[in-house]
């Protein structure tokens, strides 16, 4: 099948939706894309346009369907081959909106071997590429953590928060100093992300600092910071660190002494009861 025949297997909207879709024809087309290797993938990627610049419904559908179908046990060779082909197109001169789509497909089928190509966009603010890049790397998992560590000190603006959060998603204990510094940041969302990241790595030794910060925060910040302290206590209890968990619950009870905090004190009591 040539590229046109492959793409014609995928439907165009009828009455606004993709109602007439031929499963067998699509599956055969996907097999052709996989067996066509890097060149076939590139040919189809070349037909994907910046959103709003024309009709690319079929090429997007074909690439996504292939990214999905190379998943699962026993497809490692096809998956790596297709993901490598996709990643190689990120080096080309393409619109950022198209690169965003490619990265999102790598979130589905990419692996550690493609991480370098994806991580190149961690600090790229255009078309939210930093966000797509971080999410794809987070989906691939812990093997990508070094990219976040390298990108964070260079990050500014929106990517900074996203990369910091990524380090928390990956529960990177080596980034503890980043998290502690973030907790003192002037930006509330960075501070909250710092507390959340410390909770994610179950950092018992930082519990006092986290509690202290939760007391300083106001409004939404206080709600979330306190929640992260509760979550830390639960994680520590689950890890067998009952003494540390107990300390957190007791301190929450003491520090949240206002009338409107009654439910927090009750929650701490429930946590304490569960420790026994």
């Amino acid at each position, binding site marked *: 099948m040539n590229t046109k025949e492959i793409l014609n297997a*995928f439907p165009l*909207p009828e009455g*606004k*939706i*993709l*109602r007439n*879709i*031929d*499963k067998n024809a*699509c*599956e055969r087309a996907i097999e052709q894309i996989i067996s066509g290797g890097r060149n076939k993938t590139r040919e189809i990627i070349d037909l994907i346009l910046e*959103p*709003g610049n024309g*009709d*690319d*419904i079929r090429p*997007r*559908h074909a*690439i996504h*369907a292939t990214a*999905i*179908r190379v*998943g*699962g046990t026993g497809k490692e060779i096809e*998956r790596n081959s297709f993901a490598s082909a996709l990643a190689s197109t990120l080096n080309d001169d393409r619109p950022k*909106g198209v690169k965003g*789509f490619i990265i*999102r497909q790598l*979130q*589905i*089928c990419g692996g550690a071997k493609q991480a370098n190509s994806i991580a190149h966009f961690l600090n790229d603010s255009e078309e*939210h590429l930093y*966000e*797509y890049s*971080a*999410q794809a790397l*987070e*989906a691939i998992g812990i093997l990508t953590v070094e990219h976040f560590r390298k990108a964070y000190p260079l990050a500014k603006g*929106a990517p900074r*928060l*996203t990369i*910091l*959060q990524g380090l928390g*998603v990956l529960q990177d204990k080596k980034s503890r100093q980043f998290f502690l510094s973030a907790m003192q940041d002037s930006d509330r*969302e960075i501070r*909250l*992300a710092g507390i959340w990241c410390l909770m994610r790595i179950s950092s018992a030794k930082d519990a006092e600092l986290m509690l202290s910060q939760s007391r300083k925060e106001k*409004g*939404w910040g206080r*709600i979330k910071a*306190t*929640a992260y302290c509760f979550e830390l206590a*639960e994680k520590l209890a689950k890890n067998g660190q009952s003494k540390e968990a107990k300390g957190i619950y007791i301190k929450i009870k003491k520090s949240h002494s206002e*009338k*409107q905090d*009654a*439910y927090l004190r*009750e*929650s701490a009591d*429930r946590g304490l009861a569960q420790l026994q």
Partner: protein
Amino acid sequence: MKKIAYSQTRRSFLSKSATGATAASILPRHILGAPYVPPSEKFGTALIGCGGRGPGTYSQLCKGLDVELVGACDVDTNKAKRFSLARSKGKAETYQDFRRLLERKDLDLVAIATPPHWHASISIAAAEAGMDVLCEKPMTRFVAEGRAVVNAFKRYGRVYQIGTFGRFNRSNDKASILKHKIMSSGLMKDCNAVRMKKGGLKIKQWSGTPGIGPQTIPDTLDWDLYCGPSPWKPYESRRTGGTHRGYWDYEGGGMCDMGQHHFDPEQWTYAKDHTSPVEITPFAPPSHPEVTGMWAWVELKYADGFKFVMESGEWGPSYDRHPVRDVSLDDLSKVDQDKINSMPDPEPLLSFGEAVKQRKQAGGHPEAAHRAACILHLANLAIRLGRKLKYDPDKEIFINDNEANRFLNPPMSAPWRI
């Protein structure tokens, strides 16, 4: 922030009595701490997500309770204003950002009727702020969100009710109660029952429209906040206002729009409130990256052999893997039948209002709502992935399928996280 005159409410009376303070002091319900709430007490309420199902969801929140609307919130300011006008003559404060609303000290109950990609994050935040929640269905957008909601409501001892109520009728229906007893008894081994839902899942109605392209964002809409935890995409009007249902980023098609209505009562009837299917088999064509589309059927098998089947009736072949048949007392030995007949009926399910007053779990509690939402999410993932999936209902992960697992807890856009 606008203050409500609370001089006529029991809450205000308690507040003044307790503190001897000024009339401006408002004591919210969740600080009283007592399990019993006198029926005269007035609850401060708010609606988050004021378009579409919003007003209906808010009415469900208020049933059987004395309430005062104190806040209306929507990422589209026009919708919040319209709701405030309609339900409080404009007295209720309007918000575009739910975080500001949840900072209020006079709020007890929150109705959530945003598109589903926001349900979990807002439900959790409301619990963290000490509020009880009635949330529109589907409960969540993906599996890990549901577990986070369950944990949050357990942690804070708050009441949660999902916005579907079919299980309340089922729990009063004799035939359903009998099935519930049979399935919850543990006496049914190697169950061969197949429960079919054919049609009614609005597959075509809630399929999305691909390839529209970016449009101008309305002045009254905060588009970035609308996208929230979901991946940011260029604004298209069909991604909002009801047609959002046809996009993977926000809901999951007719399956997620209607599925919780259909399968929440079924889940209660067949006693599956605390577990999930172990094997999911789909028949569906390759899905589009952005919009939901066609599928033929999905079979969801539980550990005891019981199966739910969904057949769209709108595309593809009919389901023919197993004959459809219901659970029957005749499936059991005479001895086991006697055991079933001597079992007490299950406890009546509490409405949201009663649960709030009694500080007990509502009928549509978080674990049940989560497990019902999982039926839809697992079915949709099998449809999207086009392959049989094996699922561990305790660990809530797919077995030997790392790529499938990426869809159970997809990364959120910062600053949103669970």
